[in-house]
């Protein structure tokens, strides 16, 4: 489907490109473009970070990005262009980790499609983040289980604690 662009970008070949995302989704039919950009930040959970590494199961990740795009299209229920790109490899502070752009005739659908896509990328796509700390230590981030039984358990925990997501990302 040419209205949905998906990519995994090896950061050693070049950074993610928000301008390319805007170019892809731009269309004379569309008045609203919502984008989300995830950037590596200096601190996480109080620890000073020097960089992160992303590991991906690439063929499945790309398939999922495409599925996510189809879900966003169903949610919007009208014309949509959607761009999803995620970085892989070793990123420094300020490097872009993910770029999502959604364009639709009106802004509400664009925001909804963009939000749906980034939430799904974060919670469902086979991507793992390792954080590197100033002290030389590193650790894989806590994540979302893709395992049915554990997803259900996580949802229950979220309900009980009343926060937006069980492990705060």
């Amino acid at each position: 489907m040419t209205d949905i662009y998906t990519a995994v970008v090896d950061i050693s070949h070049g950074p993610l490109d928000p301008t390319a995302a805007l170019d892809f989704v731009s269309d004379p039919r569309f008045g609203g473009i919502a984008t989300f950009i995830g950037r590596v930040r200096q601190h996480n959970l109080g620890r000073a970070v020097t960089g992160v590494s992303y590991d991906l199961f690439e063929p499945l990740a790309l398939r999922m990005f495409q599925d996510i795009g189809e879900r966003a299209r169903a949610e919007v229920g009208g014309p949509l262009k959607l761009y999803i790109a995620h970085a892989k490899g070793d990123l420094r502070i300020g490097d872009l980790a993910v770029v999502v752009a959604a364009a639709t005739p009106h802004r509400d659908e664009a925001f909804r499609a963009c939000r749906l896509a980034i939430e799904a990328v974060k919670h469902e796509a086979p991507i793992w983040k390792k954080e590197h700390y100033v002290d030389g230590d590193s650790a894989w981030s806590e994540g979302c289980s893709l395992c049915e039984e554990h997803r259900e358990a996580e949802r229950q925990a979220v309900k009980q604690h009343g926060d937006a997501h069980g492990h705060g990302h």
Partner: protein
Amino acid sequence: MKVRITLFGALRDADSRGYIELDMPEQSTIAALREALQHHVHDHAPPISAGLVQRSAFASEHEILHNHRTVPEDGQIAILPPVSGG
């Protein structure tokens, strides 16, 4: 059959080659593979917690394979610990 389980994220530490091979009966379920992998990891990579294997999903290049599914005929599978993209 020989099943090659490709490792990702925190589970990469379970084998520096990036995969673990296990011998499994034909038509094994994912649940059975999970149990066999837990034993293997317990014996060969004790720093990896059993809980991490429990919270992980199995997948082909095409889809997540839940516990009731059978191991793919080509013996290629991936194990996906909890994800943290974005």
